[in-house]
């Protein structure tokens, strides 16, 4: 399909070779969408990993009510993305949103802001919504990794006089490498094709500020009925994700 000029409103779908790809690669808005998507992917994956790790470390320590807290932490992740998106749209509402109310009452903000009203702020608010939802998954995966690390290692390290930070760098991090890799790859792929949360929260606006690459493919195919172009963009997305994943694997391959 990506090799045809496939305009649904036209009776014929002539073969055009790589023309769709050439056209897309020459479109500035495609590259802007790629740039935005990379930013989204890096920031959201990075934050999810860091926060997830912090939560996992916390939940790995024994304390009262740990089981309950472990279950509670998963709640945002259990929420459907659509619900999450609608919820955050309400939180970010410029006139009666909870975020405005909270920040104003805390004295951090003197006038209500339109969080989804400028391209830069909207993109970051969508990232915030994504991080809120997906951090629990990262925490869960990392917690599972943490539990496989034998306690004896820490005990012997403590006997050798290694402090908490040394233990973390020397034992936890290396042994958690596989879990981190899984989180990174899974979240990068997910984040790179982010679509639903954008569809719900901003529909690519304002001023294309949240037009990520998957949403761009969607508008080409379904709003403009250019299925050939939409398909070509989707293949390009797949290619980008493949490159990213290969990069990760190289980066985090255990030294041999």
């Amino acid at each position, binding site marked *: 399909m990506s090799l045809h000029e496939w305009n649904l409103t036209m009776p014929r779908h002539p073969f055009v070779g790589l023309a769709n790809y050439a056209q897309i690669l020459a479109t500035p808005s495609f590259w802007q969408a790629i740039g935005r998507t990379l930013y989204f992917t890096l920031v959201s994956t990075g934050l999810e990993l860091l926060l997830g790790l912090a939560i996992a470390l916390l939940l790995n320590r024994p304390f009262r009510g740990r089981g309950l807290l472990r279950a509670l932490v998963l709640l945002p992740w259990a929420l459907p993305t659509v619900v999450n998106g609608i919820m955050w749209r309400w939180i970010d509402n410029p006139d009666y949103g909870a975020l405005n109310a909270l920040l104003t009452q805390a004295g951090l903000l003197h006038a209500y802001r339109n969080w989804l009203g400028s391209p830069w702020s909207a993109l970051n608010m969508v990232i915030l919504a994504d991080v809120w939802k997906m951090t629990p998954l990262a925490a869960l995966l990392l917690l599972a990794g943490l539990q496989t690390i034998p306690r004896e290692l820490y005990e012997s390290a403590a006997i050798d006089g290694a402090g908490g930070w040394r233990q973390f760098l020397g034992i936890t991090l290396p042994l958690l490498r596989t879990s981190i890799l899984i989180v990174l790859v899974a979240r990068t792929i997910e984040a790179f094709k982010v679509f639903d949360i954008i569809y719900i929260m901003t529909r690519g606006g*304002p001023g294309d500020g949240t037009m990520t690459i998957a949403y761009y493919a969607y508008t080409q195919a379904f709003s403009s009925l250019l299925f050939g172009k939409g398909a070509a963009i989707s293949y390009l997305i797949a290619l980008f994700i493949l490159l990213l994943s290969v990069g990760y694997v190289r980066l985090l391959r255990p030294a041999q």
Partner: protein
Amino acid sequence: MLTRRRTAVVALLAALAIGLGACGGSTSGGSTAGGQGSGMQPAQQTVTLRLLTMKQAAYSDQDVQAMAKGFEETHPGVQVDITFVPYESLHDKITADQASGSGVYDVVLIDGMWTGEFARAGFIRDVTDRWTPAMQSGIFESSKDIVRFNGRLYGVPWINDTKFLFYNKQMLAQAGIQQPPKTWEELLADARLLKQKGIVQYPIAWSWAQAEAVICDFGQLMFSEGGHFLDEKNQPAFQTDGGLQALQFMVQTLKDGLSNPHSISYLEDDVRQVFSQGQAAFALNWTYMYALANDPKQSKVAGQVGVVPTPAFSGKPAVGINGGMGLAITKSSAHPDLAWQLIETMSSEPVENKYAALSLPIWKDSYQQQSVIATGPELVQAAESQFARMESRPNVPWYNQMSTELQKDIQSALLMQATPQQALQRAADFTRQLAQQQ
């Protein structure tokens, strides 16, 4: 090593999933209907008609359900199954449904600018020969326009709508303003006064979100400046004269603090909420806002809501933007005759009159009916003069593509990232290319 291989497999699977998604991408929610009921079945068999409509503006969900119920009562054995989606999802939902080749819906609600696109794509049926003489003579010409393409009719208008100027009577009285504005210049002067007196922080609320909503407000302003989206040769005309002045007007009201700066993320229903909360003195919106803003259960300003035709620029005639929508039979429907009967019932004069409070009838005669006038004398009066002079957004098969680009460019001007000239020029270049490719 194992990790590496596993990861590569994950990546490949993900890539494949996306690629396949793109090819078959049009699978929609359900996959029933379609083949059901081919050939004559025993009379007892129930037939389900699936109707896709929208969940905002015009008729409320309850109204539509009541209409369907009325139809079921007179058509035993027929069940009407209704799906409501937000307006913003409607176009793409129809596309996904029909492009899949096994569409689920029998009757779909279409906006006027999609008629050409859907007709050319073969998503909806030509129903010109089903139109009765009574329909031909009784329905507004401007309403027929919305389902007409190349001289043929592809549906029946169901919603007759245009944007009105709503105002808060109490706020205007407080500011000593005797009567609502008739021109955009008067409106700005009033807004300035309201702001100066501290009666309302941002006097005007608009629906300028990156959606069709912003095109409607822009189009309304452009039409009242005598501008057009396209010229007779279907070449872009919005970047000059009327269109340019409209966008400059929009940007200036933001700079002056007369328009609510949050307008940039408002859809029509957000405008209704803001107005109903008493946070705006003026708002441009569709018919449905009148009843809802006057409903004490949903509005703090009930009883203070005034409505007049949209202003003109001084010296120019007032022109309303055509916001009518129609019902069409899908190509995939297995029951086109029943689908037609459903459409005929839902758009019939008695039914339209009965539910006139939220959406005004498409029938000329309705405006003489006491029952219709009683739903809101002020509104019906405003409607009469507004419906007499309406202009439509262009009904070309590539309208949606043009609109998508224009929405983005208008927003870049509203965000002060580009001047109105630059923004519209960009959209015009894009549109010129589009027109050429056809």
